[in-house]
């Protein structure tokens, strides 16, 4: 995708796994760098897609070297890592953005306008889902990922709540478990969030279903949906509900492919624009940290079966 963007000159790839990195570099026709430092010397911006635990390791040297960073979500597995990344960005003046692509989907951006224009009246509650299939690899390794489905999927909705409603998450209650075969890690949960702040949603509550509850046979990867109920209306948002539906004659297996704008492309274009225009708008490192704090409170609540205050690091 990077290679397709007019605004980007896609320079190269680095990867701990040199075989995988070299293979990808060849596939996209770019250079392979056998260490991150040498890549950072030659670029203005990087996208960091390493394991959650390794984000800080990769992001901080980039920022210190004057390279702008778009970091995959969640921003990190720990508050300390996120704090250090944000600090590095502040010290170096290089932009740190958290990859929250859902913000860029046109129905989601439109939903934000609708709710902020007051069409729903006072916002009472939001019911959100970000469900998917069980991912593979390091996502199932609690050490590298910092958690399972709650770590992987909560942050998109938590970010949308903050971004759309101008609220912070005050406390979280969560039921967390493992049903669907993720092994060592959690794959099912329901979170309930108390929201505060803002002019039209203070005191509202929200739920997030981050479960990996879509099986291999599900016709699409999963979903992001949210329903905002207000005093004068209800807004249902299901941005991916615009699929081409394929039914294979022999296997009978249905497959839905989304046909509209690619949210990751829109996010990358905005990141590159921000770098070119020296405009750090978009989801910041702090936005990433605030959603990580929600995740960590959810895990504490899941263990102790009581609502947990979201500890906001200064």
């Amino acid at each position, binding site marked *: 995708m990077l290679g397709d963007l007019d605004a980007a000159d896609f320079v190269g790839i680095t990867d701990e796994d040199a075989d995988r990195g070299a293979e990808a570099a060849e596939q996209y026709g770019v250079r392979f760098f056998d260490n991150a430092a040498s890549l950072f010397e030659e670029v203005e911006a990087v996208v960091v897609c390493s394991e959650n635990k390794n984000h800080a390791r990769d992001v901080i040297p980039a920022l210190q070297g004057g390279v702008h960073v778009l970091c995959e979500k969640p921003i990190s597995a720990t508050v300390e890592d996120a704090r250090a990344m944000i600090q590095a960005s502040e010290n170096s003046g290089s932009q740190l953005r958290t990859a929250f692509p859902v913000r860029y989907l046109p129905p989601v951006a439109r939903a934000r306008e609708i709710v902020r224009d007051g069409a729903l009246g006072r916002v009472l509650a939001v019911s959100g889902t970000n469900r998917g299939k069980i991912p593979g690899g390091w996502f199932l390794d609690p050490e590298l990922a910092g958690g399972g489905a709650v770590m992987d999927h909560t942050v998109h909705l938590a970010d949308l709540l903050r971004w759309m409603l101008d609220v912070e998450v005050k406390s979280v*209650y969560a039921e967390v478990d493992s049903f669907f075969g993720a092994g060592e890690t959690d794959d099912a949960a*329901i979170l309930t969030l108390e929201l505060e702040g803002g002019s039209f949603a203070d005191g509202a509550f929200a739920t997030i279903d981050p479960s990996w509850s879509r099986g291999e046979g599900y016709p699409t990867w999963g979903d992001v949906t949210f329903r905002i109920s207000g*005093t004068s209306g209800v807004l249902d948002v299901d941005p991916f509900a615009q699929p081409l539906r394929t039914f294979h004659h022999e296997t009978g297996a249905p497959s839905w492919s989304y046909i509209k704008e690619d949210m990751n492309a829109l996010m990358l274009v905005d990141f590159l624009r921000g770098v070119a225009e020296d405009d750090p708008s978009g989801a910041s490192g702090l936005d990433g940290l605030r959603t990580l704090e929600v995740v960590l409170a959810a895990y504490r609540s899941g263990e102790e079966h009581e609502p947990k205050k979201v500890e906001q690091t200064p």
Partner: protein
Amino acid sequence: MRVGLVGAGFMGSVHLNAYAGIPEVEVVGVADTRIEAALAGAEIVGARPYASYEELVAAEDIEVVDVCLPTAFHRDLAVRAAGEGKHVILEKPIARTMKDAQEIVEVFSGEDRRLFVGHVVRFFPEYLGIKEKIDAGDLGTVGVVRTCRRSPFLLGWNDWYADWRVSGGVLLDLVIHDFDYLRWTLGEVERVYARGMLGREYNRLDYVLATLRFESGAIAHVEGHWGYPGPFNYSIEVVGSDALLAVDSTEPASLQLISGAPEEIPDLASGKSPYENELEHFIHCIATGEEPIVQAKDACEALRIGLAATESVLTGEPVTLGGRA
């Protein structure tokens, strides 16, 4: 079977329309303090209208009393009818408080008189179908369930739905359907956490999001909305270790007439309404002595979950359920 119906409001007229299709039933009297409501209800089934239960029972020889009164009045009428040797069908919820519910169950225990509570969702074919598949093991172990039930606000007698002390709000009047169905399908509830509008002084608007944790381990997310600005609708999704099942009342389109205001209760164009199936089943149980699909103790347990969710909304803390029947 001779039936007298008390309370010819919204649910009363739903029941009367269902009785009209049940040949074994003769509704002989319809009572309502609002005589025009009693007249309109009586007309549906060719019964005589009365201004009160007392007048009805004095004038008609009935075997069954169908109670569609506001929830807080269930206990007094049920106890009274039991004393007069009548079988009683109560619209859900069984009562407004656990104490009332237990008192009702008590007067019907060990007697020939029977008590039935109208948890009608157990008679909806789609919900029945999901339970059958779960029971057959088609889904494997059930993990996450999501239910939703949304209704426009009903203007009842004296606006009783809006009075939380009388109706119990969306949790006890609407969401209790899902609580009963989930308990029937997944077993006992261990813990409930809920957030809602209670105590926030919104007039004719109630909304709740609840999380239930079952003893089986399953987690259910339950949404309820009173004062929904669209037509009545419901949905359920059940995900097990082997399969996902989903039903959404807004999707079936077997028969669509587009002409003015939407129907308040969706007609899935099946042969009989779930209410007709439910009431026919209750009447059959009276005639044969069979145990009903939904027993009075189930109605008490659904109420217990609803009250626990209410407590959670008010306190902000999860409530662990104990002392099951």
